[in-house]
């Protein structure tokens, strides 16, 4: 086997390229180099600058094909995974908002009952019967307001904590694209 192809194979093995894919690439490369040699064409003409760096060439090719094990496929290689980040932000934001609403509702419910106790009848001519016009849902809230406030508080705190974690992990103020590209992850020159 051509020494260049052998070096490529070692690199593909190191990168975890599936054996069948590595065999295919090695076979094509071997055949191309043999044909070029028969034509009197230099390997550099076939491989470009990659001829001087077989490992970088092999890594570049495998990465471009998306067959490097453990690395994200280039077309989905955004290290920040924007959809996952957006979904997590949305979930935490909604949780915080719901928590806030529940806390406020729980607090207001107890005062609402006191107010209702002095409401007058809406029917003309009917005497006022304080306390009779209390609405069941308000009574329920009045009795369970503390529990609602507790649940709301937990939701609110969890949502805010989630948002804080997302901000810390994402760190948008550091700008996009600062993470290494899949190509740089494997320490290879950018041939193309």
């Amino acid at each position, binding site marked *: 086997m051509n020494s260049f192809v052998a070096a490529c194979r070692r690199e593909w093995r190191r990168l975890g390229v599936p054996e069948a894919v590595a065999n295919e690439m090695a076979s094509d490369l071997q055949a191309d180099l043999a044909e070029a040699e028969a034509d009197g064409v230099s390997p550099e003409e*076939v491989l470009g600058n990659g001829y001087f760096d077989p490992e970088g060439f092999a890594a570049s090719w495998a990465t471009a094909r998306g067959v490097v094990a453990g690395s994200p496929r280039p077309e989905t290689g955004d290290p920040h995974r924007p959809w996952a980040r957006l979904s997590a932000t949305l979930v935490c934001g909604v949780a915080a908002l719901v928590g806030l609403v529940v806390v406020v509702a729980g607090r207001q419910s107890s005062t609402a009952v006191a107010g209702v106790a002095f409401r007058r009848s809406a029917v003309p001519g009917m005497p006022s019967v304080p306390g009779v016009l209390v609405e069941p849902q308000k009574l329920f809230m009045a009795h369970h307001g503390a529990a609602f406030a507790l649940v709301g508080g937990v939701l609110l705190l969890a949502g805010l904590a989630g948002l804080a974690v997302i901000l810390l992990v994402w760190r948008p103020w550091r700008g996009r694209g600062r993470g290494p590209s899949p190509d740089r992850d494997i320490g290879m020159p950018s041939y193309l």
Partner: protein
Amino acid sequence: MQDMVENGGRRTQLLRGVLDLCLLTVMAEGPAYGYEMTRRLGARGLSMVGEGSIYPLLGRLERDGLVDTHRAASDGGPPRKYYELSSLGRKALREGVFEWETTRDAVDAALGLTATEVTA
């Protein structure tokens, strides 16, 4: 900028931006395997010596669905992987050539203006 001129970096950078179009163009002549494409590029005066390799780019074109591939026996040689334009690749080639021509004309105009200013 001096380094770029002395090291031939400008040609490399320019080629890097259009080599995919060159490959798609030679593939439009008919299916070809890797070395066959190097031959076709050479016949058009485009040498890869000192430049990037076409193999990673072919991998990228395949991954992006711009080319279809199949294995077939070559003339008297082992089976090879043939690349040919997909319908998406033809569309990309049309658009790419249009972009190239537009950019080239604008640069030509800008450089022509500069040359006039310099010689005036």
